[in-house]
């Protein structure tokens, strides 16, 4: 009975299903059966960052989709179990939304040749023909953010708070650094706190930047909420990435690089409809509209800076700008 799902308070925007209860309906039915998609993600589905970007993207698709989510599974083995479980449960598409799940995916995917697996962020499919890889060109948005940051910084000193020097964060931060320096910043000070989760440490890292005259901040990964707090307490403009972080500091978030995975999701699903279950790698970037710099209308950005940002976006799309990554 799916009644329990209806009783839920409307805290989640995700239409949930009881996958186990749906065993009665065979997937052989040609029409009307919604596409069954599952997401396995390391952080919370509403983390205002990486995981939420994918959930929002799936919901944004103009298709009949039944979505299930297993979020907050930072234990890789657990994620592997969930991925396998979703495949067993008869989902059509299983999204392994975490780089670290790749190693498990390589083992699981061959066991379910009819299921399409999406793996991100990753740049190649490891030769598996039912796996699509996807990744963001996070350096591009980083570059644009960097240009803007340099434009509004008075001291010319810009601070960055990162988790580990790894994965997605590196790309964003590297691009940001290049952009900021190209935009005329004197120096970009980067701190990796060593943790994805330690909010207090991220906050103190931001504080440490302030002492050195930093007047603009950015950062990547879920613990940056701590750094955003410091920014908002000290009236320091903030640049977000992965999702629109304006709600964290409505007056101070200048712009966020937002991941619109739906651009490439639609492509992948179309391929699946056409019988291609995988074997290709996709990237969201400024050119294909998967990466969007969302400016906060509540932040009064000088015209010139905004123009520089637009120029940078065009430059990246046009291939005339090297983000340094």
């Amino acid at each position, binding site marked *: 009975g799916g009644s329990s799902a209806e009783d839920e308070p409307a*805290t989640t925007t995700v239409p949930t299903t009881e996958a186990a209860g749906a065993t009665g309906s065979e997937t052989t039915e040609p029409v009307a059966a919604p596409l069954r998609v599952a997401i396995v993600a390391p952080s919370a589905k509403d983390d205002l960052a990486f995981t939420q970007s994918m959930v929002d993207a799936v919901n944004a698709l103009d298709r009949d989709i039944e979505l299930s989510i297993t979020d907050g599974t930072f234990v890789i083995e657990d994620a592997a179990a969930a991925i396998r479980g979703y495949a067993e449960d008869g989902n059509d598409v299983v999204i392994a939304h975490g780089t670290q799940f790749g190693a498990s995916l390589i083992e699981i995917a061959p066991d379910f040749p009819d299921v399409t697996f999406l793996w991100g962020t990753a740049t190649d499919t490891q030769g598996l023909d039912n796996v699509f890889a996807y990744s963001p060109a996070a350096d591009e948005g980083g570059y644009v953010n960097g240009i803007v940051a340099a434009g509004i910084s008075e001291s010319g000193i810009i601070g960055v708070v990162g988790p580990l020097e790894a994965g997605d964060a590196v790309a964003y931060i590297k691009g940001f650094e290049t952009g900021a320096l190209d935009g005329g910043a004197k120096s970009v000070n980067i701190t990796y706190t060593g943790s994805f989760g330690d909010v207090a440490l991220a906050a*103190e890292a931001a504080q440490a930047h302030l002492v050195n005259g930093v007047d603009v901040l950015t950062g990547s990964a879920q613990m940056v909420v701590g750094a955003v707090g410091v920014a908002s307490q000290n009236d320091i403009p903030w640049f977000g990435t992965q999702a629109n972080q304006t709600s964290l500091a409505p007056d101070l978030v200048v712009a966020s690089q937002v991941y619109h995975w739906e651009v490439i999701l639609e492509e992948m699903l179309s391929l699946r409809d056409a019988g291609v279950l995988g074997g290709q790698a996709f990237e969201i970037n400024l050119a294909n509209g998967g990466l969007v710099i969302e400016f906060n209308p509540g932040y009064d950005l000088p015209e010139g800076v905004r123009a520089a940002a637009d120029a940078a976006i065009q430059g990246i799309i046009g291939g005339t700008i090297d983000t340094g990554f």
Partner: protein
Amino acid sequence: MSDFFTLTVLVAVVGSGVRLATPYLLAGLGETVGQKSGVLNLGIDGVMQLSAFSAYFVVLKTDNLMLGVLAGLAVGAVMGVFYGVITIVFKATQGISGIGIFIFGLGFSDLLFQRLVGTPKPIRQLPTIEIPFLSELPVVGEALFQHNPLTYVAFILVPVTILFLGKTTFGLNIRAVGENPHAADSLGVSVERTRYVAILIGNTMAGLAGVALVLELGIFQPNLTQGLGFIAVALVYFGSWRPSHVMAGALLYGLVNATVLQLKARNIIPLSFSELAAMAPAVLTIVALVILAQRVKGPAALTKPFIRH
């Protein structure tokens, strides 16, 4: 760079160290009181998370910091009541039941957050209060006297705890009950009641530590404490059950952390050595303890349930 600039950095590092030390200090002082009475509580990290969440949630809903603080304190106290029942009434093995509390607090606060909040939303943070006159002192003024109220509370609680344990009748009872509960019992001191109150104090202070953390950050996330409570317990051993030494330990830990962050921010520590530098607080804590070689014995009845015989 000019000397002045170095001084500024130093001041900032101290200020940051003091801020970082605050939750450790609050939790550590509370744990000191509990352990002095003979009760080990390894679960304060869980208590901190529950208190932090409730303070966060209340402030999120009411935008009233005072109510948030009260909610955090109340949850700490309630956890104290539970822990008292577990260790005093049921006389459960303390080390392990503490781990149970930790796991419960970790899971339950996460569950509540996911169900009741979901997307992290910022809340009002504690204001910085500049102490008149003192905050204007050169150097120390900015480092020590421009903090949020709970930081002051934490440091004021150091002499208060010393006085409480050392000079009050109830403090005497706590010390006696932690060393030789049978002696205290034979003089009509209720071991159970004394330990209960000590546990209540300890958990409430752990709750306050969680509140201090979340209201300093202005945001909550699952596993917000990242094992902070365990370090606070470790600092009690580091400080050999003396509040002033626990404070020294918390400050050492906070200052080393702040120094490392500052060195990172100034690109003095190469990025590739980030993690090695991040080990510094833990390593230094152990090394300091080995070098200081304090052979102070803990409360003799620590972790021993009291059973008349």
